[in-house]
């Protein structure tokens, strides 16, 4: 077997990687110690970033890709996949993360966008990408640019799950509405939601997004994680919810178990007991429109 016969970075490989994360919890971490806690708790992957969204909100200023030194340390520390965030449109940050060996790049609205017009052309990369979306059109536009995974945007750093719920219901509902429409009607939908017709047809046929769809943004408790799974999420991202909780180790483990037992209320009650308080959080409707993270990207 010649090594040059190996084909890298194909659509199947990128989307396949995202599929391996299904039913799992991906946790934000800012240093190797947190990464170890996440792995120990049963996270399927970690997301490396400079500061968790709650701290990004507090600190203000420009939020960028994490220090490559920290990303490299996290990669050396854990054996589960390491994802890392790049700014919207900042293809150089993405290239740097790819060269470090990050397993997936999150082109994330949580960081300050670098480009007001364009997202990264993700088809040129070997590494797969995850992007945020609030509705079907936005999700399909990102998939068309090469995203191998979609996550709801929610309102990151708030600990308030309502926006993640809104986005998940919107996407699931819009997919359901495609069923029973004929081709001309689907062409009209594609035009209205500014998405490529091929992807609209594919979603109508599959009755789901063509790639894996995770919940993110405001998930703070085991019950929140289970709620998102009940709404049809393939898995869950947890950011500030773990390391801003009273006891991160217990919270991390409980969230992982909640995702595996999302349809069993008795088990969820048991999992949620005595794990200490969740992150303090803030109601998403107290956020001024100019401070909302979910409106970044389009």
């Amino acid at each position, binding site marked *: *077997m010649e*090594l040059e*016969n*190996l*084909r*890298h*970075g*194909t659509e*199947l*490989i990128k989307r*396949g*990687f995202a*599929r*391996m*994360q*299904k*039913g*799992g919890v991906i946790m934000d971490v800012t240093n190797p110690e947190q990464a170890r806690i996440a*792995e120990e708790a*049963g*996270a*399927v*992957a970690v997301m490396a970033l400079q500061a968790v969204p709650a701290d990004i909100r507090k600190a203000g200023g420009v939020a960028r890709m994490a220090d490559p030194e920290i990303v490299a340390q996290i*990669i050396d520390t854990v*054996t*589960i*996949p390491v994802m890392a965030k790049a700014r919207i449109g900042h293809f150089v940050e993405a290239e740097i993360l*790819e060269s470090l*060996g990050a*397993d*997936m790049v999150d082109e994330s609205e949580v960081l300050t966008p670098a480009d007001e017009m364009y997202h990264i052309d993700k088809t040129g990369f*070997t*590494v*797969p990408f995850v992007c945020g979306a609030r509705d079907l059109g936005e999700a399909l536009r990102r998939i068309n640019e090469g995203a191998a995974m979609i996550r709801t945007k929610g309102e990151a750093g708030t600990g308030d799950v309502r926006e993640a719920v809104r986005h998940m219901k919107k996407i699931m509902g819009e997919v359901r509405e495609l069923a029973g429409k004929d081709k001309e009607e689907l062409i009209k939908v594609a035009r209205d939601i500014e998405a490529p017709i091929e992807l609209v047809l594919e979603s109508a046929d599959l009755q789901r997004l063509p790639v894996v769809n995770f919940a993110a943004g405001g998930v703070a408790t085991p019950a929140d994680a289970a709620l998102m799974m009940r709404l049809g999420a393939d898995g869950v991202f947890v950011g500030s919810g773990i390391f801003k909780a009273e006891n991160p180790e217990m919270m991390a483990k409980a969230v*992982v*178990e909640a995702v*595996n*037992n999302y349809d069993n209320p008795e088990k969820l009650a048991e999992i949620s007991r005595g794990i200490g308080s969740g992150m303090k959080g803030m109601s998403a409707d107290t956020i001024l429109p100019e401070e909302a993270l979910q409106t970044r990207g389009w």
Partner: protein
Amino acid sequence: MRIGIIAIQGDVSEHVDAVERALCERGIEGEVLEIRHEGIVPRCDAVILPGGESTTLGRLIEREGIAGEIQNAAKNGIPVLGTCAGLILVATRGDEQVHKTHQHLLGLMDVKVNRNAFGRQRESFEVDLDLPFLDSPYTAIFIRAPAIMDAGPEVDVLSTINGRIVAARQNNVLALAFHPELTPDLRLHHYFLDMISVT
């Protein structure tokens, strides 16, 4: 015929679809059960351990009490298929990474595995693989794939890449380092179904 798929984490629905399509092609009445809790494995005629994150899967099958049930079933001759992460879990021995993460192994196949034997995600690949029981190559998808570095005398090596074993069988246990559930080619699922009909 009841085929159980460990459904804790990973690409479960892809395996469910592939098995259902393979059963349909054969015209066999079969049921596919998703296993997330204890008590279901003993009712199955075959068990599939899908791809996913082996650290997570290993930990949760232990926590949920499924691990011992799979070991018992395998001992009783029930066919077991492990793909990618599943290959790691069926092994008896692991590498340094396996020890580092206190990985729980089921010990069903006398092999030593290396996790991420080909590298990280950017090194993941597709390749056309020759398998002795197929008349043409199989497009195999390797994602952060493991490989078998060392196999005991009872293990049949089915395929290798640069000296690393990527498909092997020991009696009723079949281990694949790649993902037959990610392509429409059902030949490996048919091969596994053949293992059930024999027992």
